[in-house]
């Protein structure tokens, strides 16, 4: 009856056949509790230098993007900005591993991943600028709107991936959730649905150690967040989120795993938010500068640049070229945010429904009359 493969069977030995089976063998689902690393390990020697240089350019761009967005916020050009500074390796890798036909389901902090997916910064930042709720064509970019209610995008990713599979399409959905977001019921329900439907979804948890002020130790007592996978019969992977090569590698495998019908994957990337939660937050209230300094040593950009330099995979010209591209992006951002966005108050009544209700038509008339009176106060 069903188009989909059922999850693969149990190892008959561990479970009596009459007891509501089949059940999976837990062993292959459990993550290695040591985060996967490549840079600085022998594994790095086998990496394609061009991939590393590409990741480096993306990281440089990403860092500059974060800086420019932060500056724009200080200038009042954005209503609020949750920076991903320090998390750029996760952001750019999440976009890099996806095909054009795959879908990304970002959270509010993931605008860099959206930009890496090809969306222009001014569009990616529309929500945070405050002129509209959303700025890009989600279908053209196969990128869902930024999601603010925590973890609520996770079931969307599962549904979309399942729908694509029903249609016979080769699509993977990747959704990004924070460590705090893993506590929400929606996270659980999404992973459970994904496991049962064997949907081609990758859940990328950026564990940056904090949910605003709340540290991971008050968020979860799990061995690692990746260990949550086993409760859903899906595979868990743990990766050093500040090692761009490792994140890229683990996510590439995860996406391939999902695409090939072997089921969803939960990836925990251990990283750190170097800035405050948003510009409105005061991080000194809940963490020490020592901690921040320690994590700056593991800045994903610095880590990768050091590797490239040490292995002679990049020269000053390469570094300069990356910086130049980043400056171009920053200049583009400044230019685009320089002009005030066009605003049409009457747009409030558009797209509430396919066609406005009689009630909305009345209300639109009221606003139109007010605007006319404002324009011509007599």
């Amino acid at each position, binding site marked *: 009856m069903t188009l989909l493969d059922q999850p693969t069977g149990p190892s008959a030995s561990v479970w009596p056949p009459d007891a509501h089976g089949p059940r999976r063998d837990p062993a292959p689902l459990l993550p290695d509790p040591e985060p996967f690393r490549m840079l600085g390990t022998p594994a790095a020697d086998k990496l394609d230098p061009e991939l590393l240089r590409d990741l480096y350019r993306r990281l440089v761009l990403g860092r500059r993007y974060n800086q420019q967005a932060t500056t724009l916020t200080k200038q009042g050009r954005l209503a609020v900005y949750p920076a991903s500074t320090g998390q750029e390796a996760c952001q750019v890798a999440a976009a890099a591993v996806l095909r054009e036909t795959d879908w990304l389901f970002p959270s509010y902090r993931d605008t860099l991943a959206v930009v890496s997916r090809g969306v222009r910064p001014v569009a990616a930042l529309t929500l945070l600028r405050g002129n509209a709720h959303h700025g890009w064509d989600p279908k053209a970019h196969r990128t869902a709107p930024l999601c603010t209610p925590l973890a609520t995008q996770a079931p969307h990713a599962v*549904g979309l991936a399942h729908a694509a599979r029903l249609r016979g399409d080769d699509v993977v959905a990747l959704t990004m959730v924070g460590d705090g977001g893993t506590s929400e019921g929606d996270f659980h329900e999404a992973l459970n649905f994904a496991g049962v439907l064997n949907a081609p979804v990758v859940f990328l948890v950026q564990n940056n150690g904090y949910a605003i002020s709340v540290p991971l130790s008050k968020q979860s007592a799990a061995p690692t967040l990746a260990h949550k996978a086993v409760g859903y019969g899906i595979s868990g992977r743990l990766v050093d989120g500040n090692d761009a090569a490792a994140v890229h590698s683990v996510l590439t495998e995860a996406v391939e795993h999902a695409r090939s019908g072997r089921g969803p994957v939960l990836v925990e990337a251990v990283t750190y938010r170097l800035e405050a939660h948003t510009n409105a937050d005061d991080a000194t209230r809940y963490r020490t500068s020592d901690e921040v300094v320690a994590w700056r040593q593991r800045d994903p950009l610095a880590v990768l640049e050091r590797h490239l330099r040490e292995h002679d995979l990049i020269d000053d010209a390469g570094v300069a070229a990356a910086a130049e591209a980043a400056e171009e992006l920053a200049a583009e951002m400044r230019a685009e945010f320089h002009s005030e966005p066009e605003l049409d108050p009457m747009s409030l009544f558009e797209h509430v429904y396919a066609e406005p209700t009689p009630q909305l038509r009345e209300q639109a008339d009221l606003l139109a009359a007010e605007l006319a009176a404002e324009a011509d106060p007599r």
Partner: protein
Amino acid sequence: MSTVATPAPQSSAPARSLTMAQALNTALRDAMREDPNVLVMGEDVGTLGGVFRITDGLAAEFGADRCLDTPLAEAGILGSAIGMAMYGLRPVVELQFDAFAYPAFEQLLSHVAKMRNRTAGQLPLPITIRIPYGGGIGGVEHHSDSSEAYYAHTPGLHVLTPATVADGYGMLRAAIASDDPVVFLEPKRLYWSKDEITPGSVEPIGRAVVRRQGTSATLLTYGPSLPVCLEAAEAAKAEGWDLAVVDLRSLTPFDDETVMAAVRATGRAVVVHEATGFGGVGAEIAARVMERCFHHLAAPVLRVTGFDIPFPPPMLERHHLPGVDRILDAVARLQWEQ
């Protein structure tokens, strides 16, 4: 009103006598036959055919993928339906009982209701959310809530509730055909009511209908209270009142035109619904009728509703639910002497 693609009526299908449950089932089946993108999902909708059998036989005919038994998690159900709709499917979600829709409230308010608006029309969500609602069947707690006010107050949702077997069919077809999300509230105590339907007929969204003409006063009602109001109107004849009865059918959008005309014609009105009165849909109806028909009214619009209490246990529910006598008492208070 919402765009409703009117599917070609199924040849010259003859009228058939069905229960409301069967009419809803037929509507689902017809919609699934016509559009391969329509799929049904929820708890127990597949093998079992739903606890009220509204999805009976659909898994057998369309397969487990198009009539999907989901895990037991309402936010997950609605949330994954959102993703499916983003990919072009038209999910019809069953939430098993009124109170078991609450876990999906965040998905409903923060996503389903807003997605079209927040993406400036780029991600419409053609999802139909079927919820059996209301009392009158002796359900234990959490099985009899009338939750329409929560949905009607939420912009971006259409809120429909059929009161007749024919509307069970026609309105569900319209809901599924709508490109907007529809909260489709099924009065569970009317599941067993019987009448004729014409398969293939689609009721446009947003139109109220006058079920009974009358000259003395107008009863404004919907869903499970319609039969009670019609009964009250019959009984009122003995008192010398000739009551009109309007079935709203669609709470959002609201059919001001039909309602105001019906109230102006009589100059008196009573709103009737099962839900708790305070802040209920009846408040909106009474307020807008009085705003718009103030000088046509001989008396204030009164409300007959459930009390402002948690839904009572089965053995006491009849005292809570608006009945014929309570409606007639309200009609009697419409200041006939002045």
